[in-house]
């Protein structure tokens, strides 16, 4: 694969600014080759929907400025679309069992919750905090805005809070039996 395509893939994957020297390190070539490849990539992207942006020693891929209106529309759609059954279920687990990891949510629901959690995060309904027992994972919990929107001052006010807790805990215990 050509160096400019390699760099394009790295920048795409990262999704944010990368230091040029990081690109040099990852692609295993010298600075000059990376500089040349960046020029080539910029040229190739000139007529496309993605641009190569450069600020000092950092580069990044971004959508071209002409796209701002349509992207604004897309963001609005993401924020207003119906939460659906998956949304209600995931939100309910975060409320009743939070702070909770994604793995626990997935296990309880029996399906993967990556995309729905992403949507709940950008909508400010849940937030993620670092997990004190595992550096690599996060814990999800309801936002203050969500609680006040629902009109509950403490989690225990949720309907049948005690019984739901019991059932979820019982289920979580069975998990450790199985493994």
């Amino acid at each position, binding site marked *: 694969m050509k160096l400019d395509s390699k760099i394009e893939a790295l920048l795409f994957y990262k*999704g944010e600014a990368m230091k040029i020297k990081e690109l040099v390190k990852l692609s295993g070539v010298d600075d000059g080759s990376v500089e040349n490849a960046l020029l080539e990539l910029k040229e190739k992207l000139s007529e496309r929907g993605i641009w190569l942006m450069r600020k000092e020693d950092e580069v990044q891929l971004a959508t071209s400025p002409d796209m701002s209106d349509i992207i604004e529309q897309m963001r609005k759609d993401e924020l*207003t679309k119906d939460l659906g059954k998956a949304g209600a279920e995931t939100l*309910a*687990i975060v409320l009743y069992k939070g702070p909770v990891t994604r793995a626990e949510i997935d296990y309880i629901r029996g399906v993967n919750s990556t995309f729905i959690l*992403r949507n709940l995060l950008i909508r400010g309904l849940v937030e993620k905090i670092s997990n004190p027992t595992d550096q690599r994972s996060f814990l999800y919990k309801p936002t203050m805005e969500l609680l006040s*929107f629902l009109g509950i001052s403490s989690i225990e006010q*949720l309907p049948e809070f005690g019984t739901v807790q019991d*059932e979820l805990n019982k289920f979580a215990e069975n998990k450790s039996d199985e493994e």
Partner: protein
Amino acid sequence: RVALYKKMKSQEYTVKTQVFEGPLDLLLSLIEKGKLFINDISLACVADDYIEYINKQEDFPMSRTADFILIASTLVLIKSKSLLPTLDLSSEEQESIETLEKRLKLHQMMKELSFHISKNFGKKIMFTKTPSKNITPVFSPDGDLSVSKIAEGIRSVLLNLPKKVAVIPKKVVEKVISLEEVMENLAKRITKNLKMSFKEFSGIGKEEKVNVIVSFLAMLELVKQGAISVSQDEHFSDITIESDNIGIPKYD
């Protein structure tokens, strides 16, 4: 066919020590070990080994035994038909044989394809963009978000939790019972067809029906191979089994 049958016998030990995920897995491995194609002849060849395998398994969970036995009943049908071409099969029985062959072929096909999956999985991953870490959330509930919607959500979650205790479904129990019937019926028909009884040889009445059938098929196989000869004085009387070198074969 006799040669194939003997070849299968020599593979027995390896098969017995292996663990199989299910009846089709076992059956396919018996066929593949004999380097056979999937058809009624090869299925007839492996029938005894299959039945012997399940007889030797003592601690099968009930639900799994049913799956294994159900396939066994079809194999017995196939084997009976191959040894006794005059045996009439009902259209349902004929269909169960065709279905087994078809399932086995599909099973084999998917098992072979699964090697591609295992081999390629995770080797060349196509990654998506890492989600941005600096998106500012905008509080945006949807129109009908409420405490009752949340309560509905959690009820649906609890309802869909997998049940821990595996109860044997009623259907499985029914299947085992119907197998009993199949065996009984088949025993009657084979007896009538040959106009003889094999009471003593097979321990009929004392043994499990499946064992009676297996014994009978084994005896027929030995007759075919010329190892023994059998004679019978009158209809429904006992059979005399004669042989110079092996005496009365001992099958369990």
